């Protein structure tokens, strides 16, 4: 599972587990709930919460029935009474079952109460195509939640960000959805330091460049970085930005990068229509129009459910060649 892991590296799933251990040790108000999260149930289907119930007790790391509305409702209620619950919704598609609790309640209670109450909960969920999990276990629905005033949405692409974003999400006074891209759970990357925080709303420039800004997040970020070689060979200098937070997204970093490069390609695994790329492209056309040398371009999955069969699933997912090709065409004026 963690083949080739070097001493100073860690997988994303281990980083998430480490973030829980560190956070719960520091603050007794932090709770974990969800399906199978306690150790008798193996600490979560991916092991993200393993060891927590043994160390902190099953009253703080509590396995729930398969009842997503009840899970989010319990998290909301406990947060109103001063706790900081982290709810696991096993898969992102299952968040749809709890949408009323998330959208109508968690996201809105601060506003509807005129600021008298707030809902400092974290909702962790995993998703992503690549393991042939098909139409109801793979979707990226981040745009749904980013469209909800009151919600924050973060998506890490590596172990350090997974640790730092989860810690920041727990610190945050409002509901934060943490989307974990399951196929990259076991990829070793640089190890986080204890206590590390990644500020919510802050993107990371993963590579500097001058011809085009390529924006992405989650596993797609790695596919973008893998395109650097082909881009370099074509004489294209790309600036790579890992968005990390979807809402509120880091407009400052993105706008200043695009003002410099004059071109932007947004890459995500979610289906392209009405996605995060559409929002960013619209903002760039409003705020960067005079500086653009090419149309803002988007790569996303086709507008279909996620297919099962391996060749279909691979065709569904954007890939490195497509990213490189599109970016080169934008820079060379062949768009």
């Amino acid at each position, binding site marked *: 599972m963690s083949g080739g892991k070097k001493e100073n590296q860690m997988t994303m799933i281990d980083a998430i587990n480490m973030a829980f251990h560190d956070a719960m040790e520091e603050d007794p108000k932090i709770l974990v709930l969800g399906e199978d999260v306690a150790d008798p149930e193996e600490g979560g289907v991916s092991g993200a919460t393993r060891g927590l119930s043994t160390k902190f007790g099953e009253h703080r790391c509590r396995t*729930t029935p398969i009842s997503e*509305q009840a899970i989010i409702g319990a998290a909301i209620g406990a947060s109103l009474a001063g706790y900081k619950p982290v709810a696991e919704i096993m898969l992102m598609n299952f968040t749809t079952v709890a949408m009323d609790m998330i959208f*109508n309640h968690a996201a809105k209670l601060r506003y509807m109460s005129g600021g008298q109450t707030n809902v400092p909960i974290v909702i962790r969920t995993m998703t992503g195509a690549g393991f042939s999990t098909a139409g109801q276990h793979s979707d990226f629905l981040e745009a749904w939640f980013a469209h909800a005033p009151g919600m924050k949405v973060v998506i890490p692409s590596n172990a350090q960000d997974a640790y730092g974003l989860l810690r920041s999400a727990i610190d945050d006074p409002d509901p934060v959805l943490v989307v974990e891209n399951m196929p990259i759970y076991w990829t070793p990357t640089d190890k986080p330091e204890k206590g590390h925080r990644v500020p919510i709303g802050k993107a990371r420039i993963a590579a500097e460049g001058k011809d085009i800004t390529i924006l992405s997040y989650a596993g797609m970020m790695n596919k973008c970085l893998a395109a650097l070689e082909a881009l370099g060979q074509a004489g294209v200098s790309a600036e790579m930005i890992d968005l990390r937070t979807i809402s509120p997204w880091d407009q400052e970093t993105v706008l200043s990068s695009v003002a410099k490069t004059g071109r932007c390609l947004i890459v995500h695994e979610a289906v392209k229509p009405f996605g995060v790329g559409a929002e960013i492209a619209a903002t760039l056309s409003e705020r960067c129009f005079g500086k653009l040398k090419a149309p803002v371009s988007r790569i996303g999955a086709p507008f279909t459910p996620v297919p099962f069969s391996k060749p279909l699933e691979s065709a569904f997912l954007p890939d490195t060649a497509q990213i490189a090709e599109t970016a080169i065409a934008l820079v060379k004026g062949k768009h």
Partner: protein
Amino acid sequence: MTKTNQPDGPTQVEIFRRMALLKANDERARKVIRSGRVQMTYYSYRGQEVIPAAMSVNLTDKDYLCTIYRGIHDMLAKGIPLRDLWAEMAGRVKGTCKGKGGPMHLTYPSKGIMVTTGIVGSSMPIANGLAWASQLSKDGRVSVATFGDGASNIGAFHEALNLAAVWKLPVIFLCQNNQYGEHTAFAKATAAKHVADRAVSYNIPGVRVNGNDPYEMYAAARQAVERARAGEGPTLIEAVTFRFFGHVFGDADKYMDPAQKAAAMAADPYPAFRSKLIADGTATEAQLAEIEAKIEKDIDDAVEFALDAPFPDVAEVTRDVYGATA
């Protein structure tokens, strides 16, 4: 229902006082809407006053309440101040929520009024979380989720009752069965004979009471509160009642059986309880009249306060979406 667990004289008068407050406030709200002075979507609870009055005398300010769009009676019984309530209903800045929630989303944490939801069934999963917090911190608080009979057919009810039972939470599920879910009669929409029967599935007590009888309602509430405080887990109470003025203000009630409605209104629990208190010698006519007169004066004051209060500054539109981060 046996006569154990009965309210003493002063408690009976206090139940009456709360009923009087609820009834007068509903009458005034409908009057003010008709006058055009306040525009709001209003769900009258007239006829259901006994339930929150007899429930709330068993609770303290620290106990939590999660209620629903037809819930102003629940909140008044729990102690929401009239001025703050009216200012919120009128959309004024001095309302509980600065005018940003309105009558469907009233919130008043200092009296334990934590959530008012406009979504059928959603009071229950959140009440569980509040109860979980009490279980963890051992603060002895009880959480009450109120809802209508229609909500017992939504998934959230079943998820919430199951979780509360499995976790043995100090929560009370208080179903105010007013016999209609929106415009649809109870039996047409509900396979169970009674809502209380559904408790069997969750291995918790399911108690069905006449929700218009203050004595029965008080006894059931008290028992459920004691059970929750003792750490014995949740109770489902089905309090059978009737709403006099339909689903939403302006509703013509054409879906109702006129004879059923006439009979229910003739059996109005308010004058019945008032007469009983006097007949029993628990209170005098003068004493109850004084209570009613004071309430009318308090409501006069609250309406005036609300209508004189300024509307929120439009800058409020974008405030309170997120809190300040450290």
